[in-house]
C-alpha cells in the first residue's frame, strides 16, 4: 500500500468515526467519490472498530506467564541435540524425561535424561550434583551407571541440564516390583549388587540419598545398575527463597510419594544425613521386593513421613513366610530408626546378603514353617529397647509437629526471634586425607575467632565447639547442650591447590537452614573464605555490628601452614592442662616458623602464666610472669587487637598486683573479643580478688556459658563461688566437675577447700586426699590436705603432710602457699605469716586473693595481715 493511499484511508476512517453510525454510509458515498475499492477498505475497517476496542488488552507478560506456567523441557523425537539423535522417549520421572538416543559420533546408543529446568536454579547445588555424578561415574563400578556427559541446553525457558549416560537395556526395579514375582534369590542378588555400588560410592564420600526402585535398573542377564548418583543434591533442602515452592511441591499428593516412602528417618526430619541413609533406603527397597508392599505406608505424604518416624514395620515373615529369620533380621536392621543400629557400612550389609544367599542354596532344614516371631516373648531387654525407640520416635514425631507449626507461624510474617548465640561446629574434612584435618580445624578456629569479635553475639568458644568433631549427634541436641540459637556447620575439601568449602547456618529450634553457601577457591585463600563466611553469617543473624567489628571480620592475615599447625596443637594442649611444657614447645615452634605470628606469642604468654601458678607450681611466679609479659608484649607489637595477648598481659598484671593495669587490659580484651571465655574468666578472678563478688560471679557465669564444655571454666567458677563464700553452690558446681571427670585433680583440690571452708572436714579430707593422689602429690594439694587435717583436729596427719612438704622444699621449689595452708590448719600463725611473707616476696598467685580467701580468715585480725594488704596496694 502506498502511503498516499493509506493517508486517504486513515482520514476517511477517522472522519467517519466522528459521525453517527447511521450517517457513515452517506458520508463515505460522497467522500469516496466513486472509488469503490477505497470505500470497501474503509468500511471493512470500520466494521472491526468496535471489536478492536478490546483487542490486545491483556498485558503480553500475562500471556507469556501462562505459557511458561506448565512448561517442561522436552526433546523432540527425531531431532538432534548436539551429536545425539533422539530416538524415543524411554520414561518420565520426577526429575525429567529420559530418552533413547544415538551418539552419532561414536555410533552407540545412549540414554539422555533431560532435567526439568526448575530445580537447577541454584548454581552451588548444581556444581555439587555435577561433581558427585561425575565422581560416582568415575568409580567405574559395574553396578554404577556410567555417565558420558553433562551439559545444558539453551531454550527459551532457561537452560535445562541433560545427562548422557550408557544405555542399559532392561527394566527398572520399579517395573519388576509392579509386575510382581521376584523370588527371594533375585531380591537378595539385587540388594547385594546395590550394596556393592553403595559401598564403592560411600568410600569415595558420595551418598546417593535417593535409593528407590526407580533408580535401579536390571539387565536381562541380572546385572544391576544404580542410577542418578548425586541427583538428589538438586532437590534436597532448598535454600531460603525456594523453601516455600519446594514445600508446595512436596505436599502435592502422589507427586513425591514414591520418593518419600524410601526416605530415612533423618531425611524425613530434614536433618543431616550420612551414608547410612542409603542403607535405610535399601532396606525399604528390599522389604518391598520381598513383602510386595512398602514397610511404611500412608494415605498422604505426611502419613508416610509419620510412619517412617514412628512406626515399626510389620515383621517381614507376615508377608513372606519363606523369608527366614536371618534375612528378616537383616532387613529390619537396615530399617532401624537410629542409624547407629543399622548396618554401619554397605559392605556389612552386602556380607549379610551373601550369607543369606549361601543359606538359600542349602536345602531347608526340615519342613517346619518359619516361626512367626511377632508376639513371641523375646527377651525383656530388646522389648525395652524397642519400646524406648518407639517412645523416642513418638517424641520426634511430636517435635516435627511443633516444628511444622513453628515453621508455618514463622513464614506467616511473624519475625523470628533474633539469633543472639551461635556455635560453630568443627568443619568436616572431606578431603579423604587426614593431613588436611589441621586445615579444617584451623578454619573452624578462625571462624570462631572472627565471629567472637561481635559483641552482641554469644559465640561458643573453640574448646567446647571442638568437642563435636566428628559427632553424629543431631543438631538440636548439640544446640541444647550448648544453649545456642543457631549452629554453623560445614565441610571442606582440598585437592591440590583447589579448596572447596561449604557452610550453612541453621536455626537450632526449628532446624531451619537460614543460609548456605559454597566457595571454590585457591587453597591460599582459605582465610579469605573464612572471612567471607563470617561476614555472611553476621549479615544473616542481623546482629548489630559496629564499624570496628566490621573491620575485624574483614581483616585476616595469611598464615604459614606449619605455624598454624603448631599453634593449634599448642592451644589444644594448653586447653587440656597438665601438658604445659609441651604446649609451650609448640608455641615456640610456631614462632620459629613464622616470627610474625602474633597468636603464637599470646599462646606462649598464657603458657607461662599457667606455669607460674600455684596449681602448676612449675616455675617461680615472678620469673614465669616476666616471660609471660614479654611474650604478650611481642604479640601486641605485631597485633594490638589480639584479645588473647591482652588477656595474657592482664593476667600477668593481676598477679603482680598492678590492679589498674590489670583491669584495663582485661576490659580491653573483652572489648576486642566479647566472646573470649578466657578474658571473662580472668576478669572474674580480678573482680573476685577486689572483693567485687557479685560481678565476679557474673563474669564466671559468662565464661562458663561461652565454654560450656570446659571443665577448667567450671572449676574456676567453683573457686570464685568459694571466694564469695557461697559454699553450697561452690560444692555443687565442683562436684559436677568431679562427677564428669573423676580424675580432675584441680576440681578435687578446690572442692576439698570449699568443704574445708564450709567446715565439712570429713568430706574435705576425703576429697583433698584424692586431689593429692591425682596430682601426683603436688605441693599445693598436699598443703591443702594438711590444712584440712589440721582444721579437723587430726594433728598427726597434718604434721605428716608438713614434714613431707619441708622435706621436698629442701630438694626443689615448693610453693610457700602450701606451707601457709598447713600452718593455718595447725593454728601456727607466726609460721603462717612467715611463709606468707615468702609468698608475698615471690608474688604468688595466691596473694592476689588474700583479701577475700576464706582459708585466710584465722589470720585476718592480725596487724601483719593488714600490713600485707597495704603493701599489695589493697584496701582492708
Amino acid at each position, binding site marked *: *500500500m*502506498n*502511503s498516499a493511499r*493509506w493517508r486517504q484511508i*486513515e482520514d476517511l*476512517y*477517522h472522519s467517519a*468515526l466522528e459521525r453517527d453510525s447511521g450517517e457513515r454510509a452517506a458520508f463515505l458515498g460522497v467522500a469516496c467519490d466513486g472509488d469503490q475499492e477505497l470505500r470497501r477498505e474503509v468500511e*471493512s*475497517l*470500520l466494521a*472491526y*472498530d468496535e*471489536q*478492536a*476496542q478490546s*483487542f*490486545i488488552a491483556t*498485558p*503480553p*507478560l*500475562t*500471556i*507469556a*506467564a*501462562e*505459557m*511458561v*506456567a*506448565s*512448561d*517442561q*523441557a*522436552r*526433546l*523432540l523425537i*527425531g*531431532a*538432534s*541435540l548436539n551429536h545425539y539423535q*533422539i530416538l524415543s522417549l524411554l520414561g518420565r520421572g520426577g526429575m525429567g524425561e529420559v530418552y533413547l538416543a544415538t551418539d552419532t559420533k561414536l555410533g552407540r546408543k545412549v540414554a539422555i535424561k*533431560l532435567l526439568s529446568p*526448575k530445580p537447577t536454579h541454584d548454581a552451588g547445588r548444581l556444581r555439587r550434583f555435577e561433581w558427585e555424578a561425575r565422581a560416582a561415574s568415575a568409580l567405574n563400578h559395574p553396578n554404577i551407571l556410567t555417565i558420558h556427559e553433562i551439559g545444558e*541446553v539453551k*531454550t*527459551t*525457558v*532457561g537452560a*535445562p541440564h541433560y545427562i548422557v549416560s550408557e544405555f542399559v537395556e532392561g527394566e527398572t526395579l520399579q517395573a519388576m516390583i509392579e509386575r510382581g514375582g521376584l523370588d527371594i534369590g533375585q531380591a537378595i542378588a539385587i540388594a547385594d549388587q546395590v550394596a556393592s555400588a553403595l559401598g564403592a560410592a560411600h568410600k569415595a564420600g558420595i551418598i546417593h540419598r535417593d535409593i528407590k526402585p526407580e533408580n535401579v535398573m536390571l539387565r536381562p542377564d541380572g546385572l544391576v545398575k544404580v542410577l542418578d548418583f548425586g541427583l538428589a543434591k538438586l532437590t534436597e533442602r532448598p535454600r531460603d527463597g525456594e523453601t516455600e515452592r519446594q514445600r508446595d511441591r512436596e505436599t502435592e499428593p502422589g507427586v513425591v510419594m514414591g520418593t518419600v516412602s524410601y526416605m530415612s528417618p533423618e531425611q524425613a526430619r530434614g536433618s543431616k544425613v550420612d551414608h547410612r541413609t542409603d542403607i535405610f533406603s535399601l532396606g525399604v527397597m528390599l522389604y518391598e521386593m520381598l513383602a510386595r508392599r512398602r514397610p511404611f505406608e500412608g494415605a498422604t505424604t505426611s502419613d508416610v513421613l509419620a510412619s517412617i518416624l514412628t512406626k515399626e514395620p510389620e515383621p517381614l515373615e507376615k508377608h513372606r513366610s519363606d523369608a527366614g529369620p536371618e534375612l528378616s533380621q537383616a532387613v529390619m536392621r537396615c530399617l532401624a530408626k537410629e542409624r547407629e543400629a543399622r548396618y554401619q557400612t554397605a559392605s556389612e550389609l552386602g556380607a549379610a546378603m551373601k550369607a543369606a544367599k549361601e543359606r538359600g542354596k542349602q536345602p531347608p532344614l526340615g519342613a517346619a514353617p518359619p516361626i512367626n516371631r511377632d508376639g513371641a516373648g523375646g527377651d525383656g531387654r530388646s522389648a525395652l529397647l524397642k519400646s524406648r525407640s518407639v517412645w523416642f520416635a513418638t517424641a520426634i514425631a511430636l517435635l516435627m509437629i511443633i516444628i511444622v507449626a513453628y515453621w508455618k507461624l514463622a513464614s506467616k510474617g511473624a519475625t523470628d526471634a533474633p539469633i543472639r548465640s551461635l556455635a560453630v561446629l568443627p568443619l568436616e574434612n572431606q578431603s579423604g586425607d587426614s593431613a588436611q584435618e589441621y586445615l579444617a580445624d584451623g578454619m573452624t578456629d578462625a571462624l570462631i575467632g572472627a565471629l567472637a569479635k561481635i559483641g552482641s553475639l554469644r559465640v561458643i568458644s573453640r574448646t567446647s565447639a571442638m568437642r563435636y568433631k566428628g559427632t553424629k549427634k543431631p543438631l538440636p541436641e548439640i544446640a541444647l547442650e550448648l544453649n545456642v540459637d543457631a549452629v554453623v556447620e560445614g565441610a571442606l575439601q582440598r585437592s591440590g591447590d583447589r579448596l572447596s568449602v561449604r557452610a550453612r547456618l541453621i536455626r537450632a529450634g526449628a532446624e531451619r537452614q537460614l543460609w548456605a553457601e559454597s566457595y571454590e577457591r585457591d587453597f591460599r585463600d582459605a582465610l579469605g573464605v573464612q572471612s567471607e563466611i563470617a561476614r555472611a553469617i553476621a549479615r544473616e543473624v542481623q546482629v548489630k555490628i559496629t564499624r570496628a567489628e566490621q573491620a575485624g571480620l574483614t581483616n585476616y592475615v595469611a598464615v604459614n601452614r606449619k605455624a598454624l599447625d603448631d599453634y593449634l596443637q599448642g592451644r589444644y594442649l594448653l586447653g587440656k592442662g597438665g601438658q604445659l611444657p609441651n604446649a609451650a614447645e609448640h608455641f615456640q615452634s610456631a614462632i620459629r616458623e613464622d616470627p610474625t605470628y602474633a597468636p603464637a606469642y599470646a599462646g606462649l604468654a598464657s603458657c607461662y602464666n599457667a606455669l607460674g601458678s600455684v596449681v602448676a607450681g612449675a616455675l617461680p611466679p615472678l620469673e614465669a610472669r616476666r616471660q609471660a609479659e614479654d611474650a604478650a608484649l611481642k604479640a601486641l607489637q605485631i597485633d594490638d587487637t589480639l584479645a588473647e595477648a591482652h588477656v595474657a598481659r592482664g593476667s600477668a598484671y593481676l598477679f603482680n598486683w598492678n590492679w589498674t593495669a590489670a583491669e584495663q587490659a582485661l576490659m580491653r580484651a573483652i572489648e576486642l573479643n566479647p566472646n573470649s571465655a578466657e578474658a571473662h574468666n580472668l576478669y572474674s578472678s580480678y573482680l573476685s580478688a577486689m572483693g567485687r563478688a557479685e560481678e565476679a560471679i557474673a563474669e564466671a557465669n559468662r565464661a562458663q556459658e561461652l565454654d560450656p564444655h570446659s571443665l577448667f571454666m567450671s572449676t574456676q567458677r567453683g573457686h570464685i563461688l568459694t571466694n564469695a563464700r557461697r559454699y553450697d553452690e561452690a560444692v555443687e558446681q565442683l562436684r559436677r566437675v568431679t562427677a564428669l571427670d573423676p580424675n580432675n585433680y584441680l576440681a578435687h583440690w578446690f572442692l576439698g577447700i570449699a568443704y574445708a571452708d564450709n567446715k565439712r572436714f570429713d568430706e574435705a579430707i576425703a576429697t583433698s586426699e584424692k586431689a593429692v593422689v591425682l596430682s601426683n602429690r603436688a605441693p599445693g594439694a598436699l598443703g591443702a590436705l594438711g590444712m584440712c587435717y589440721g582444721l579437723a583436729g587430726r594433728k598427726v596427719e597434718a604434721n605428716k603432710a608438713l614434714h613431707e612438704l619441708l622435706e621436698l622444699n629442701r630438694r626443689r621449689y615448693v610453693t610457700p602457699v602450701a606451707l601457709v595452708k598447713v600452718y593455718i590448719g595447725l593454728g601456727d600463725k607466726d609460721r603462717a605469716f612467715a611463709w606468707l611473707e615468702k609468698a608475698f616476696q615471690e608474688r604468688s598467685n595466691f596473694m592476689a586473693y588474700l583479701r577475700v580467701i576464706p582459708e585466710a580468715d584465722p589470720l585476718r585480725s592480725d596487724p601483719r595481715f593488714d600490713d600485707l594488704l597495704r603493701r599489695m596496694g589493697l584496701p582492708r
Partner: protein
Amino acid sequence: MTTTPQEVSQLLRAWSDGDQTALDKLMPLVYEELRRMAKRHMDRQNPGHTLQTTALIHEAYLRLIDQKETRWQNRAHFFAVAARAMRSILVDYARARQAAKRGGEAVVVSLDEAAVASDERAAEMVALDDALEGLAAFDRRKCRVVELRYFGGLSVEETAEVLKVSPETVARDWRLARTWLLRELSKINER
C-alpha cells in the same frame, strides 16, 4: 550483568541525542535484563494472574539507570527501548514454542493440559508480530505506537513524548492500528 548504570544512562542520552549506534549497544543490555526479570516473574506467577508490563520495565529502569541522571526525557526513551526489547522477548518465546510444535528445533518447550490454550496464545502472539511488521511496511509510526502501548505498557502521553507527536495523534494511531491489526489477524483465521 557487568554494565554499570552510568554506562546505560550514557547510551540512553546518546541515543536520545540522535546517535543511532547507541541504540544498537543499548538494546542487548536492556533485552538481557528484561529477559532475566521476565523469566523470574513468569516463573513466579500463576497463569491468569495479571502481570504488569510497566511494573517490570520500571523495575528494570531502576536497576539499569543511574538514578542521579536527571534528564526526565530519559525515562521515556528508556521505556521505548524496553518496549522493543519486550516485544522481542515475548515474540521470540512464542515463536520458539511454535517451532517446537512443528519439530523445527531440537529442544523446546512443551506442556501438558494447559498447553492447548497457551499454544493458541503463542500462535496469536506470533501472528500479531507478523501483522505488526506488515503495518510497519507502510506506517512505521503506528507500529511504534503499538509497540510502546502494548509491549511497553506506556500511556498515551508517554508514547506521545517518545514519538514527539501530540497525544491526540497517538490516540488516533492507536485506534486505527488496533482495528487494522485485528482485521489482519481475522483474515488469517478465515483462511
